[in-house]
């Protein structure tokens, strides 16, 4: 499925099986479209600045800066340094989670019939923790560098008392979300189950991802204008690029 289309608006397309991990650097001005191929996917995701990996995705700043608990079209995903890694420019779902956390090795063993590599080859049963450890170690990062991750395609709602509820069957086959990158970003991806997913059998849900060229950010851009905070976030990115970033 991996195909390169260098001259097209869509430059590249590939697939990640369920229960797997990968990473890539997205350039400023490109769009990452993720598609839930069969329904029920969960994409655990973290962002780092490839030039200074101490700068990482910050869920609290993202949520409080936009007065939101859910993430959807119009929202920006912030680093701890007041900059925008990417903007959600399209979303067919209306709600993505960033508070449910990650499936640990310990919980994986408690919840599922786990198969080792020796037993199942590449259909082995991985946790989100395993995946983040492997991908982050490729860049010299470890558990100290973890942060609250995104769980794209998953929904965790709360009631008035603050009780959390995982919404099953949230994401249908074909659901998509488009992330437009506002600075160069190291993207860490896994497709392991959400830690609150009550399914008894390990959910193994594949996704595809496409990389496209982004349209220039116009003055009336939805994400930049959805809140005054985001206008200032875009200003911070502009200052960062003006001064050459961390070079």
């Amino acid at each position, binding site marked *: 499925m991996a195909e390169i289309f260098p001259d097209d608006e869509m430059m590249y397309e590939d697939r990640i099986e369920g229960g797997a991990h990968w990473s890539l650097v997205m350039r400023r001005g490109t769009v990452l479209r993720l598609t839930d191929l069969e329904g029920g996917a969960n994409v655990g995701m973290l962002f780092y600045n490839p030039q200074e990996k101490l700068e990482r995705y910050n869920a609290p700043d993202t949520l409080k800066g936009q007065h939101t*608990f859910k993430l959807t079209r119009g929202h920006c995903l912030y680093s701890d340094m007041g900059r925008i890694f990417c903007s959600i420019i399209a979303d067919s779902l209306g709600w993505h989670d960033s508070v449910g956390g990650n499936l640990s090795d310990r919980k994986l063993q408690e919840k599922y019939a786990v198969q080792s590599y020796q037993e199942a080859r590449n259909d082995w049963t991985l946790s989100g923790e395993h995946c983040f450890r492997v991908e982050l170690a490729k860049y010299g990062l470890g558990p100290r560098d973890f942060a609250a991750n995104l769980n794209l395609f998953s929904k965790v709602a709360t009631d008035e008392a603050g009780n959390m509820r995982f919404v099953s069957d949230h994401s249908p086959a074909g659901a998509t979300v488009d992330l437009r990158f506002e600075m160069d970003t190291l993207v860490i991806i896994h497709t392991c189950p959400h*830690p609150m997913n009550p399914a008894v059998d390990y959910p193994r849900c594949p996704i595809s991802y496409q990389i496209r060229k982004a349209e220039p950010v116009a003055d009336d851009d939805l994400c930049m204008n959805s809140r005054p905070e985001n206008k200032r976030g875009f200003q911070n990115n502009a200052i960062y690029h003006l001064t050459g970033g961390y070079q």
Partner: protein
Amino acid sequence: MIVASNLSAEQASYRKVVPAGDYWMEPLKQGQTLRILDLEGNQAADTLFFSLADPTERYSAMDTIREQGNIYLTAGTTLVSNFGNPLLNIVADTCGRHDTLGGACAGESNTIRYALERKCMHSCRDSWMLAVSQREEFGMSKRDITHNINFFMNVPVTPEGGLTFEDGISDAGKYVELTACMDVIVLISNCPQLNNPCNAYNPTPIEVLIWDE
């Protein structure tokens, strides 16, 4: 859940007033109980916990709320580490609800939330950066600074997915108490934020008390 303590301040083995804008970073041994006391009311205490034996193991906001199935912290909450272990239990709470989704203030996030010109105002993150720089014996750096608890802060989430900052529900003399399940490092920034109601626009001192087992 409101649970009053039966510990008496006179019998505490340690007492320290922490002014607004300062940090407090000290070990707390397994079995010891820590009280954070809001002396004048409506003061946020931005707090992180680490395993003393290996600070790579630390408080995890997301593991804590998921394991208890509720986004607010109060008496009965077990604070869970990133490795899934209990760090501390909240054993008393006269405030009733504490936030762990709002994170801490930083000069950089102040630029987004308020104005680019407010970048140099003092912040919790600056206090933590000073702490890890001055207290080298703990072997920590910015890598270790992650999503904290905001004791005494009120950040309601709506069923529709909204999140707001409300005036504090704390008051002068309210407190929270935690008993350590393992030896931990406590890192508190007594919040200097002047731009929102988390400190009622008037940051004030807190007191930290410790009782031995």
